[in-house]
């Protein structure tokens, strides 16, 4: 078995390590790099809890061999928090709107929301639902999650809060 010299940017910092070809990105993040914010719900690309952003685009990390992110930029949910511990506007909105119960889908929801708001300043409800259609939530019934995204969009637009 041939090991692969993987080099990529993770949450803004360069990372180099030797990986097995069969290592999936979600396992690399959780086990080797100890970033357990990314969750595993299905290992089939059906639940979205494992969502990370690769070059700004949401992908299911359970379906991606780690090797695939060679030379790319990866953002996990841990990467949204600033160095000084200040949370991103989207994270704050999820908290203030009560959009978190067990928290398992939250990382996936927030990262998909971030990808949406980064390219569309004021999405309407159907666009928000479409953007979040790849993450399943068994607790909240989605309503507060959608409200949180609307709130975050408004705060970002008004330029209030921290520029996370």
């Amino acid at each position: 078995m041939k090991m692969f010299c993987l080099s990529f940017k993770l949450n803004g910092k360069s990372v180099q390590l030797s990986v097995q070809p069969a290592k999936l990105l979600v396992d690399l993040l959780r086990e080797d790099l100890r970033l357990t914010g990314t969750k595993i719900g299905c290992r089939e690309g059906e639940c979205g809890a494992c969502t990370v952003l690769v070059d700004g685009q949401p992908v299911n990390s359970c379906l991606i061999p780690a090797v695939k992110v060679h030379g790319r930029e990866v953002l996990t949910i841990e990467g949204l928090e600033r160095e000084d511990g200040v949370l991103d506007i989207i994270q704050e909105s999820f908290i203030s709107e009560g959009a978190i119960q067990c928290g398992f889908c939250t990382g996936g929801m927030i990262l998909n929301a971030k990808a949406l708001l980064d390219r569309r300043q004021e999405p309407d409800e159907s666009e928000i639902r479409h953007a979040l259609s790849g993450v399943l939530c068994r607790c909240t019934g989605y309503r507060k999650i959608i409200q949180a995204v609307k709130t975050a969009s408004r705060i970002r637009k008004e330029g209030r809060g921290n520029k996370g």
Partner: protein
Amino acid sequence: MRSVFIPVQWGRDVEIGQYFLPGSLKEALEFLAEQEGKAKVIAGGTDIIPGLRKKDKKGRVETLVDITRIPKLNFIREEQNRIVLGCLVTHAMASNSELLMGKAAILADGARSVGSPQIRNIATVAGNLVSGQPAGDTSIPLVALDAVVTIASSEGYREVPLTEFFVDIGQTAVDPRKEILTQISFRPLGPGCGGSLLRLGKRKAMALPMLVCAITVKVNRNRDRILEATIALGPVGPTPFRARSIEDFLKNAVINSSTIAEAAEGVAALCSPRDSLLRGSCEYRQEMAKVFVRRGISQALEQVRATIS
């Protein structure tokens, strides 16, 4: 946790001996030929990776050849009155393409229905074809558009029309152990042409289709006759289905509601879908095929502003 997975048919970990990232098509094809069937092509990987976890090891390979770093394969362009898609066009790119939304909306719409945003960001349209499923959300519109694919191997290129591409469930004209589907081309829907895509699924997202029906029509200048039509459906058999005899029936047909109803009845009679726990019973899908063809022809005609008398 490991022990939970053992009795089930899915394994937790995948097995890949080597992961190769060629920088050019030539490099990829030569490598595949050298590996003599022990390597397999991977693009997005959304079909391949879950497939590798099946315990019957049918999906297991020694080496994966990842073609996503090969430059200039993710184009969507119009040339010489054909629209051409490179094999690395993802479903996200296809659904957002202005060119496709304008001149082949049924393909853009089909691409938008696949999986979830995360899946659409990495899964390729070419991969959807190569997966050989009887009801790919992009395969059915491409079959209705009479698309042709180009398949490359270390021995050269060949072109295969989609109507000859699908062999059986999971089997196509492409051998992913030595060939790469490099591009898909078809004639755009021009003036006087309309199309429709109807899809029946259990949910609004993340759902495999129970029935997909793509229809294109071309009308005469007076917009009172259908000059020609294509009707593609799936899954109603092991491969995507073109209702050829009904297409013949519609050639030069007068546009009125009884013609459309007869066409719909005709298609339903030709379909023989199996009873399926996943996709619905035979009778239900036959009935829905009838409804979809009727609605689909009407919608396609509406697009070209042909009134149905």
